[in-house]
């Protein structure tokens, strides 16, 4: 299960941007500028640092690539468009509605719309959707969104259509109807089928396990015209996509061109200069060092910002002796100077201080602050007295896993410095960026603490709190419960909430559980990071989508004017 920060790092440096919304607030846009209505046509350029992980939607799984998938692929449901919570609401896509559950929500029936086609003109049937989902179980492809594997009945023994053949948990009584049998009740299945493992592929075609990653088969408004890994991706219109069947995708430009492999500071320079084709370009969040340079009126007018919808937090490994005492963890929660962590990340424009685990974009998030200090600058005195109470009058010492990357290092140093004031000595274990998640996700290798991040897979607590704090989700490898919290009260509450059939009620319960968990202080929420993006002067309809790590929503953006 992923979507943590590394992924995000790539998505962000690379791609795009942002969101607006609630707490993050948005800076500058006005009237007919970047938020105006785009026109049809033209070529929109995207400047990006790193290439997308995969073109096969069963494999790619991060905010940046999910955003791009919406241009090529359609799913049964998808996120809406618009800033903030408006954008993360689930709406029907290929399906006519959000699905019909049986009484206990273990069986879900969807009906497909009419006039939906693949890029070769063949109609999309329920068998194609079934085949697309089945592919996601293939061992070679099962690195993307895990929800089909988690939720569908019989998933444990099924290895995809190429090895195991037909999957009985998915039934297609006719060409328009598809029925999913789940292994347990799941009230929010309408959100799960918006994941990219629910993209249809022609069941009778020549789709192999690896062919999609090479040559995607489009169901959305664009198809891949050419792709050179690491340098360029060109999308052009898919003539067989019917806009009348699609209320989400506006698909303004005639084509999208990604340029990969640009240095982040080169991207910033080009976006700030905004000359030539770069007038029609968008890019990901600027670096902190570029913030002072985008304060002119001209650039402010084409700057958008928003929160990523993710939480950066300090996970405390509760299995380590020093961290096993909740008083110690609470002391750390009091002592951390979140403002200096914020400054190290790039200041107020690039991050908000977080006091809850759930980010404000998540439905049901409640505001609370269990460990208050003046201006969030940390309370070393309170921390010292808690440590004394815990039996450590002389302070403690622990080791924090950190990543060899400037921003992550700055955050770690800020935490180290603020804890030092409370008599807590933090030693660093510097880990190479490429192996960071492997190390902290391996229970035998992780140290006492680590700074990491989490983004929900859709905007509810269901994809946020259980992976991070449920006792049954502690795995020896690929572990995301890095606090290794296994608290009976939290575990039983998670089970109760998962069984709720009313999604709204469940969302509120997740918000309350957030507070219940933080009373145990298994993690210190640090920041809700934001993206600040400069777009070209000819860009319109750009806003930051909270469901895609704050990236600019590709299906809504376009050009303000197109030359004849």
């Amino acid at each position, binding site marked *: 299960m992923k979507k943590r920060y590394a992924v995000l790092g790539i998505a962000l440096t690379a791609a795009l941007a942002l969101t607006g919304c609630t707490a993050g607030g948005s800076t500058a846009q006005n009237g007919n500028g970047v938020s105006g209505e785009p026109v049809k046509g033209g070529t929109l350029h995207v400047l990006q640092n790193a290439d997308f992980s995969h073109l096969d939607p069963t494999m790619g799984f991060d905010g940046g690539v999910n955003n791009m998938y919406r241009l090529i692929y359609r799913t049964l449901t998808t996120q809406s468009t618009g800033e903030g919570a408006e954008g993360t609401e689930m709406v029907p896509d290929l399906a006519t509605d959000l699905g019909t559950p049986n009484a206990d929500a273990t069986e879900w029936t969807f009906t497909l719309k009419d006039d939906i086609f693949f890029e070769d003109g063949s109609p999309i049937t329920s068998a194609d959707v079934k085949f697309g989902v089945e592919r996601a179980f293939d061992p070679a492809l099962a690195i993307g969104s895990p929800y089909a594997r988690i939720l569908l009945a019989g998933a444990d023994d099924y290895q995809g259509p190429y090895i195991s053949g037909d999957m009985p948990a998915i039934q297609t009584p006719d060409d328009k109807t598809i029925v999913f049998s789940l292994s347990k009740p799941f009230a929010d299945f309408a959100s799960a089928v918006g994941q990219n493992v629910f993209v249809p592929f022609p069941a009778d075609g020549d789709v192999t396990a690896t062919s999609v990653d090479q040559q995607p088969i489009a169901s959305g408004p664009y198809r891949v015209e050419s792709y050179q890994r690491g340098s360029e991706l060109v999308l052009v219109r898919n003539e067989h996509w019917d806009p009348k069947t699609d209320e989400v995708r506006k698909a303004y430009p005639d084509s999208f061109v990604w340029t990969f492999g640009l240095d982040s*500071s080169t991207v910033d320079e080009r976006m700030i200069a905004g000359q030539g084709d770069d007038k029609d370009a968008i890019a990901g969040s600027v*670096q*902190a*060092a*570029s*913030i*002072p*340079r985008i*304060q002119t009126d001209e650039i402010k007018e084409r700057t958008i910002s928003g929160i990523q919808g993710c939480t950066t937090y300090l996970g405390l490994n509760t299995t380590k002796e020093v961290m096993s005492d909740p008083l110690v963890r609470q002391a750390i929660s009091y002592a951390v*100077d979140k*403002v*200096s962590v*914020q*400054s*190290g*990340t*790039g*200041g*107020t*424009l*690039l991050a908000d201080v977080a006091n809850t685990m759930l980010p404000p974009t998540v439905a049901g998030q409640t505001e609370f602050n269990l460990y208050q200090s003046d201006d969030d*600058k940390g309370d070393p005195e309170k921390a010292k007295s808690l440590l004394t109470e815990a039996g450590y009058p002389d302070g403690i010492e622990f080791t924090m896993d*950190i990543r*060899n990357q*400037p921003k992550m*290092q*700055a955050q*770690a*140093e*800020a935490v*180290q*410095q603020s804890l*030092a004031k409370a008599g807590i000595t933090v030693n*660093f*274990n*510097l880990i*190479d960026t490429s192996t960071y998640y492997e190390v902290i996700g391996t229970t035998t290798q992780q140290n006492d603490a680590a700074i990491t991040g989490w983004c929900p897979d859709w905007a509810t607590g269901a994809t946020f709190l259980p992976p991070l704090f449920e006792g049954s989700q502690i795995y020896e490898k690929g572990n995301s419960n890095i606090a290794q919290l296994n608290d009976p009260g939290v575990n039983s509450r998670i089970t109760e909430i998962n069984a709720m059939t009313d999604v709204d009620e469940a969302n509120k319960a997740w918000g309350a559980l957030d507070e219940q968990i933080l009373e145990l202080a298994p993690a210190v929420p640090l920041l809700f990071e934001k993206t600040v993006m400069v777009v070209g002067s000819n860009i319109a309809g750009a806003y930051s989508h909270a469901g895609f790590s704050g990236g600019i929503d590709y299906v809504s953006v376009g050009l303000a004017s197109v030359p004849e």
Partner: protein
Amino acid sequence: MSTAPSQLAIEVDTVGASPGGGAPTPARRVISTLRRSPAVVLSVAYIVAVVLLAALAPVLASITGWGPYTYDPEAINADLGGIPIGPLGGISAEHWFGVEPQNGRDIFARIAQGAQVSLLIAVSATLVTTVVGVVLGMVAGFYGGWADQVISRVMDFLMAFPALIFMIALLSALPAGNRPALLVIVLSIFGWPYVARVIRGQTMSLKNREFVEAARASGAGNWRIVSREVLPNLRGTIIVLATLAVPGYIGTEAGLSFLGVGVMPPTPSWGQMIASAVGWYTVDPMFFLIPGTFLFLTVLSFTVFGDHLQKALDAGDAA
């Protein structure tokens, strides 16, 4: 940032090629030659200043009131990406060299602390490589035979290695531990053959000189010949090699820290400061210029001093 040892090797070859022996040059004459050169005087003055800066880092920090790790949120503008407040990167009476963006740490304190780290590593690596290089070089040169074969092949092997790449790989793979010590070890592993090769050549030519023959004829043992006859004649070469090695190691350590495999954060190092300043060069050029200037002048001073020392010693030989 090439590893200076390779350049060093070339210069050192010329030393090795020069007539090796001769009586030890009177130190006083060398010093008076050096004192006549303004470049040397300036270099030495600068080196002394940096050494004082490094040695007095804690004292200076207590005078200014800003340690190398103390954050100063008042000195940066968190609403503008954390850029230092004030001109020239926040240079003020309080922060003499300004502050780092995003955290407000005092650059003067970090430069001083960084000088300590850099000099300590470079001087330690020089000591280790010189001792190892001189001992192994003399053994190879004096005894010849299989000892020479083994030592020379090991030197060839190490010198043929892509040292920088291997250092990066080694330092990334090793556990964190004591970084400065690890750096000294890694620098020394790849550094000693450059000393040993020169010493070996000079020892080979010295051992056939008349005064060695004379000592041998008068019944001196090997140890006595090596310590009383050969080593004193290598003194000038060793001093020059060591002086020229220091800037090489300072540069290499800065390079490794720049690449993120040097000393661990938050311990400051000039290379690390330069690396973190790269992104800020347009909005805060001083952050880049200050550690860059210190690094440049330090390497330059040691090199100028070493060059002139070599010339003065050679002139002594020729006289």
